[in-house]
């Protein structure tokens, strides 16, 4: 079997978060080195705080300050930190119940090794030097040997210049594979051939092939070369430039039924003024050196196809 293609795919976006009143106070507090929890109907203090009571479902807004010291309730050693994690040397993920809180906060503990960490150990916050109103304002936790518990100042959660939103960038790293059928299709494109696959049951030719017929639900294996000529079945003229696309506007985005294919594929129509493109226009692919796909399709000069000949493909 020919080799199946693979390529890295990175999906990345700087998502924004509007915080609402409770998270706004919590994160602003961190900026000011104040840790806030919220009181529930049954008198517990939740840190980090939430907006709605997990028992009664009522809205809760009663913020209370807790201490920057606490106790590890459980932990796991992270021997190989990844990009974006709180520390770049091995550390422990810890759940810490801060003094005055009834729930635990997830964070990192800076420790020399797993032998230096145990459930029940006392820890305290190590504040980041530069703080902006984010969970990373807590740089990490560190072991705390004193028996003293600092008394919280009793902050009520009202600050000057509240943080109301944050940016939460996210990134996912995939290894993408188009699979057997599309790998064959893509490899053929480098030889400037367009190949589809025929369904053994309904005999329809799929381009690009997906490896199975979506109607009959059976595998497709018979390779069929189609085109190079084709008919524009429908199209639109794109007038707005998308941020992630390097195509000058206006351009024509067309559905092209290649000769021998039973459904249209999508491509750019060029070599003709955009306002002269029409349904039924006969086109052929234009290849560029080293391109993975036709750069665009251009008119062949043949007479337009009659609507009746392609209307089932629209």
């Amino acid at each position: 079997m020919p080799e199946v293609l693979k390529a890295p795919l990175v999906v990345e976006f700087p998502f924004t978060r509007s915080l609402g009143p409770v998270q706004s106070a919590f994160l602003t507090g961190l900026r000011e080195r104040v840790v806030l929890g919220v009181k529930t109907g049954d008198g517990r203090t939740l840190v980090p705080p939430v907006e709605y009571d997990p028992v009664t479902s009522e809205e809760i807004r009663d913020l209370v300050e807790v201490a920057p010291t606490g106790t590890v309730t459980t932990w796991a050693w992270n021997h190989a930190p990844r990009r974006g994690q709180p520390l770049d040397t091995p550390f422990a993920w810890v759940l810490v119940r801060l003094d005055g809180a009834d729930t635990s906060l997830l964070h990192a503990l800076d420790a020399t090794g797993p032998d230096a960490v145990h459930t029940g150990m006392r820890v305290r916050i190590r504040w980041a030097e530069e703080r902006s109103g984010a969970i990373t304002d807590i740089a990490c936790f560190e072991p705390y040997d004193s028996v003293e518990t600092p008394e919280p100042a009793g902050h009520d959660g009202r600050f000057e210049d509240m943080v109301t939103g944050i940016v939460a960038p996210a990134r996912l790293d995939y290894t993408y594979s188009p699979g057997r059928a599309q790998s064959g299709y893509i490899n053929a494109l480098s030889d400037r051939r367009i190949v589809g696959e025929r369904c053994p049951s309904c005999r329809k030719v799929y381009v690009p092939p997906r490896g199975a017929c979506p109607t009959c639900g059976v595998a497709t294996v018979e390779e069929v070369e189609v085109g190079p000529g084709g008919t524009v079945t429908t199209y639109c003229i794109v007038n707005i430039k998308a941020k992630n696309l390097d195509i000058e506007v206006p351009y024509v985005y067309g559905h092209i039924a290649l000769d021998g294919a039973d459904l249209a594929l999508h491509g750019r129509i060029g070599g003709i003024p955009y306002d002269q493109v029409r349904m039924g226009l006969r086109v052929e692919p234009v290849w560029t050196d080293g391109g993975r796909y036709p750069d665009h399709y251009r008119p062949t000069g043949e007479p337009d196809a009659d609507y009746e000949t392609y209307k089932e493909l629209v």
Partner: protein
Amino acid sequence: MSKEPVAVVGIGQTKHVAARRDVSIAGLVREAAQRALDDAELTWADIDAVVIGKAPDFFEGVMMPELYLADALGAVGKPMLRVHTAGSVGGSTALVATNLIAGRVHGTVLTLAYEKQSESNAMWGLSLPIPFQQPLLAGAGGFFAPHVRAYMRRTAAPDTVGSLVAYKDRRNALKNPYAHLHEHDITLEKVQASPMLWDPIRYSETCPSSDGACAMVLTDRVGAARSPRPAAWLHGGAMRSEPTMFAGKDCVSPQAGKDCAADVYQQAGITDPRREIDAVEMYVPFSWYEPMWLENLGFAAEGEGWKLTESGVTELDGDLPVNMSGGVLSTNPIGASGMIRFAEAALQVRGQAGEHQVDGVRRALGHAYGGGSQFFSMWLVGAEPPAS
């Protein structure tokens, strides 16, 4: 054993806007849910289960948001389900909730759908780069515009029909305090002079990007008997799917949409939807989808949908009002958009639609679609309980 009749007794939504920077996602869904509970005069304790829907997680970048929203929706200690069927999700979410009551699994269910589009960018979320593929297009408009052109070719509809839909829906939105766009100075000329984005689709014929949530309280006969306000009764509900692309797919009038409508009408005993249904709230993100869906849903013969629009039949005071709320063209928190359609149908038969209420609506259809015209969900609600 027959199904339990299902009633809508509470409806709530947020004022839809471009960005709700004052609330978290939890705060947004809570606001709609609380309003639905208030409408039904119920408390969190009266709810047996919660069914929530939203469009792709990339639209906010919160993976499995239902986990974090359990507290905000009073779901602790109760079943909570999340539904996803792309743009139709608001409709299919309501139908999953409906089936829990119809099957007598639960007595009273809170169902809710939302999107907080300001936290991300839907055009980005719908156009992730795929290795080995030529990047050609961004967003939904360019995807649907060729299908609109195909409809125009197939029916020889005058090219002004799309602008009539947009002008109507934007005026209807002025009567709906929850609608996102309130364009007080809208004129038909302005719609027709707006720039072509994806020719043949103009700027004013596209939906906005909104933050918003919609919630409904659904209940059984016992619950409906206690309802302080009139209930909307379910007479039929169905979902259908088909692949995004396959040989023989009718992209203008997909078979799955026709089958879904036929199922709903059969359940409701409807043989002539044009005469027997009083109002329709359908999913029209680009104006031309009104005439396209009028045909797909059986309100007009093939090729004739645009004539209903052009002759004013679908106006608020027309014979078959369509998108009384202002529609998706005026409000589009994507995940919630299907549920807003369903809720508007229910508001109309309850007589609770306020300034955009159509007189004497006894039966109304709510419709949603999603993906590449591949997921369909619809319900038909009535002012009277279904005949047993």
